[in-house]
């Protein structure tokens, strides 16, 4: 049950984040900011080829260079077994993870690691890396997803036979897996339709674009104990992956979460960490490794590019009768694209009787994709929301009304199997329609687009500890790397339960030795799941505080209630006792049983699904094809905003990333399969002058399973922008574009084809 909002003192307020001063003064320590005595600098040798067999690796010249202390190749790493493990929100085969960290027999993309070196300075490490001679047999490569599915395409892995089809194929293929989700009978649904629209769409791979490159410091002692300091979305994930890849007992690895300079899903796996540990092991000294921006683009991230066909039918009065989608997703060099969640979310905003979504997970000679904010959903929902918009236009129905008429409600069964509980899809549509933005008249060459989006949100393992200090302050420990202000939310929730001033609570993200396992900071789960653990821990501390007061008063604990940070007699029947504050109870804790604390180790269930609706106004320059975003509004059901400022920030930041995906961002390859735009100059993320203010409207439909009603909020906001921008451009130009990004040349070409 939810607490009543009027009772809240801290929930819903805009407190100063506890880590804030460190972050505005330069004191906060990120991945690359740690220096240890005797520390070496590590560098990676990467493949220049998109696909090649490794014939030999000669490290002798590098090892002979003065200042070089260790060189590592795949020969130094244990062989990994084939088993599936959770990587962020997707599953990955452990053997693939090992081969992605360092290539064994073949390199599968330009940028694939083949060796690593540690030396006394960066300069020496770079020179040593250049001295490592790798002999390759270059193989034919394939980059595009549809090309990779062709019969004559170069096959990356001879052990991959398409999964999810019967009978099992006899020939190895780049199509790693087929998934299907269905509800009702789509053929019958299309037969009932008065209008059917079918379109083919493509999207390009886009990078998460966190400003902090991957960075780690690893230090392995002679007793085999390992200390790791790194920027990641889960230091428990880093421990688990490094333990598994290097065959080290987990208890011997301590990972400390550095402050993290952005992740967006891209830091839910390991790249450098196992290499740094091995280099430290061989050198007997700490090793720091930091990726360059070019390495970040070539060898980490991105999310899939895709090709897809979307077909939707509707009756004249605006009821959707069937939706059918086929999705082809690039996985990169190893299986594991987000085609599964893309298929599950594609039609989830709608209450449909007949749905079928088929998805294919396809490998090609690009780096392995990794989670990016609502993995897969922005892609499939871009296609669906573009067709939904076109249907509304053809039927002459307002696009928000059309969505409301078909939109999911409590009790709607989604094609992926879930029946929705309390959700806010309809409420976000109503709030969007009620905005001033939606009523502003548009000028020439301007257009308005609307789109909606859905994401599951997840729970998972989290822990929290509340320690009441002798002076009445509170130390709060948890283990979810704070990527966007979550410590502020944790402090607020703890202060609310304990009834004390929020500044008396100091939250810390502690190391893997200091608290129990946490799933990664991902899936929009931290404020929900870790927040739930914090609330449980705080409630346990309150129970202990009540017990101490009961002991002092010589009454039964049931006779003591906790209100406004004080133990009070439950009624006059209990006796006439002066309320005791948390600080007063803390001061005498040694006389009432010792230190006072509360702990919770949970696997949170019941994450509330999230829905959002965005409105985008654009102006398209008819001479250049350049798109200017004039206005943008993001509406979302956030359950309850613990710290509204950081919740708005999630909506605004997600919208900006989605706008970049729609307008600018794309991986571009040359004919040799090498990335051509591996830098921020040529891979252009939105800059301040590209964007307008982004109005964030928080709709609060509390999640009944969370004590304060929290729903995850981080991922939904990147889903609607792709179609919202596309639909706005269609309204401005009269052309329904079907490929992202909507670059000026693409727009000009589309407009001239129309004329």
């Amino acid at each position: 049950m939810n607490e009543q909002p009027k009772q809240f003192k801290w929930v819903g307020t805009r407190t100063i984040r506890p880590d804030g001063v460190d972050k505005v003064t330069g004191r906060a320590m990120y991945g690359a900011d740690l220096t240890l005595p005797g520390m070496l600098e590590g560098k990676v040798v990467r493949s220049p080829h998109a696909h090649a067999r490794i014939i030999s690796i000669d490290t002798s010249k590098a090892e002979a260079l003065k200042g070089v202390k260790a060189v590592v190749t795949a020969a130094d790493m244990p062989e990994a077994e084939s088993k599936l493990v959770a990587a962020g929100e997707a599953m990955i085969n452990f053997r693939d993870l090992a081969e992605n960290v360092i290539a064994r027999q073949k390199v599968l993309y330009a940028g694939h690691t083949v060796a690593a070196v540690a030396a006394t300075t960066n300069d020496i490490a770079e020179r040593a890396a250049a001295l490592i001679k790798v002999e390759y047999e270059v193989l034919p490569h394939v980059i595009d997803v549809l090309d990779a599915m062709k019969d004559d395409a170069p096959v990356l892995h001879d052990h991959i036979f398409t999964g999810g089809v019967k009978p099992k194929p006899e020939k190895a293929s780049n199509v790693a897996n087929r998934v299907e989700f269905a509800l009702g009978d789509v053929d019958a649904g299309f037969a009932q339709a008065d209008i059917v629209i079918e379109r083919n769409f493509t999207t390009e791979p886009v990078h998460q674009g966190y400003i902090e490159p991957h960075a780690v410091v690893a230090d392995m002692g002679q007793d085999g104990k390992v200390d790791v300091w790194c920027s990641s979305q889960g230091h428990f994930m880093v421990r688990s992956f490094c333990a598994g890849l290097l065959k080290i007992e987990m208890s011997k690895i301590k990972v400390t979460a550095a402050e993290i300079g952005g992740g967006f899903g891209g830091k839910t796996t390991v790249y450098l960490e196992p290499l740094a540990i091995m280099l430290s092991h061989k050198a007997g000294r700490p090793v720091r490794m930091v990726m360059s921006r070019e390495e970040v683009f070539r060898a980490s991230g991105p999310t899939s590019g895709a090709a897809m066909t979307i077909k939707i039918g509707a009756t004249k009065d605006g009821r959707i009768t069937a939706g059918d989608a086929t999705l082809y997703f690039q996985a990169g060099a190893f299986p594991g694209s987000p085609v599964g969640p893309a298929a599950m979310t594609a039609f989830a905003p709608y209450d449909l009787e007949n749905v079928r979504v088929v998805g294919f997970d396809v490998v090609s000679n690009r780096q392995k994709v990794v989670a990016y904010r609502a993995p897969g959903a922005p892609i499939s929902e871009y296609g669906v929301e573009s067709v939904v918009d076109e249907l509304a236009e053809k039927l002459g129905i307002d696009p928000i009304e059309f969505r409301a008429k078909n939109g999911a409600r409590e009790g709607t069964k989604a094609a992926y199997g879930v029946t929705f509980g309390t959700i806010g899809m309809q409420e976000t549509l109503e709030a969007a329609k009620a905005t001033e933005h939606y009523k502003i008249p548009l000028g020439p060459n301007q257009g308005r687009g609307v789109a909606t989006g859905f994401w599951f949100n997840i729970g998972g393992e989290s822990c929290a500890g509340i320690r009441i200090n002798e002076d009445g302050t509170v130390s709060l420990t948890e283990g979810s790397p704070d990527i966007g202000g979550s410590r502020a939310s944790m402090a607020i929730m703890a202060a609310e339960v304990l009834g004390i001033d929020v500044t008396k609570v100091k939250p810390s993200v502690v190391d893997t030795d200091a608290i129990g396992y946490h799933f990664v900071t991902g899936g929009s789960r931290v404020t929900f799941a870790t927040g739930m653990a914090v609330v449980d821990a705080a409630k346990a501390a309150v129970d202990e505080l009540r017990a101490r007061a009961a002991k002092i008063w010589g009454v039964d604990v049931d006779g003591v209630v906790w209100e406004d940070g004080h133990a009070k007699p439950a009624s006059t029947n209990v006796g006439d006792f002066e309320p005791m504050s948390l600080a007063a109870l803390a001061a005498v804790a040694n006389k009432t049983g010792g230190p006072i604390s509360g702990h919770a180790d949970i696997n949170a269930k019941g994450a509330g699904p999230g829905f959002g609706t965005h409105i985008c106004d654009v102006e398209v320059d008819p001479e250049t094809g350049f798109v200017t975003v004039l206005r943008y509004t993001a509406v979302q059901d956030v359950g309850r905003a613990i710290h509204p400022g950081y919740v708005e920030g999630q909506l605004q930041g997600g919208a900006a990333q989605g706008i970049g995906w729609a307008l600018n961002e794309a991986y571009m390859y040359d004919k040799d399969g090498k990335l051509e735009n591996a830098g921020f100059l040529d891979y252009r993320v939105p800059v301040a002058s590209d964007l307008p203010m982004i109005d964030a409207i928080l709709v609060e439909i509390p999640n009944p399973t969370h004590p304060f009603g929290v729903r995850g909020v981080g991922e939904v906001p990147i889903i609607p922008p792709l179609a919202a921008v596309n639909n706005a451009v269609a309204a401005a130009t009269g052309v329904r574009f079907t490929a992202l990004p909507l670059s000026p040349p693409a727009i000009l070409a589309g407009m001239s084809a129309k004329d």
Partner: protein
Amino acid sequence: MAKQHITTTINGEETEYLCEPQETLLDVLRDQVGLTGTKEGCSSGDCGACSVMLDGRLVCSCLVLGVEAEGKTVETIEGMADGDELHPLQQKFLEEAALQCGFCTPGVLIAAKALLDINNDPTETEVRYWLAGNLCRCTGYDKIIRAVMDTAADMRGA
């Protein structure tokens, strides 16, 4: 080549260091002087995370050599607050949640201060173009732009 002996003033304090001729000011600040508040995001002058003031001019410290700081003054994020007193921009960024991961924040603050030092009443467009060289991937810039404009308004009123 031999290391160069450089004498410069960093955040008001005379500082000496030895650096290789090819070393950037960014690397010197972070690795030799121990001022890691200045961040490296790209090393190509595209992201602005390494913004510092060099003789009163806003620069990307990754595009400046360590030797170029000889005889000059360098101001970094570590010198922005006056003791325990935060600069109004720093305070406003905290009050208005104008940072998420915080990695771009030092560079944004240095650049924003450089703007307010020469223009105490910038328009939204002026702020957006001034900060166009400072990439932020978390915030969508909205709260950053508002915080800079609100700080300017406060400072004008003060």
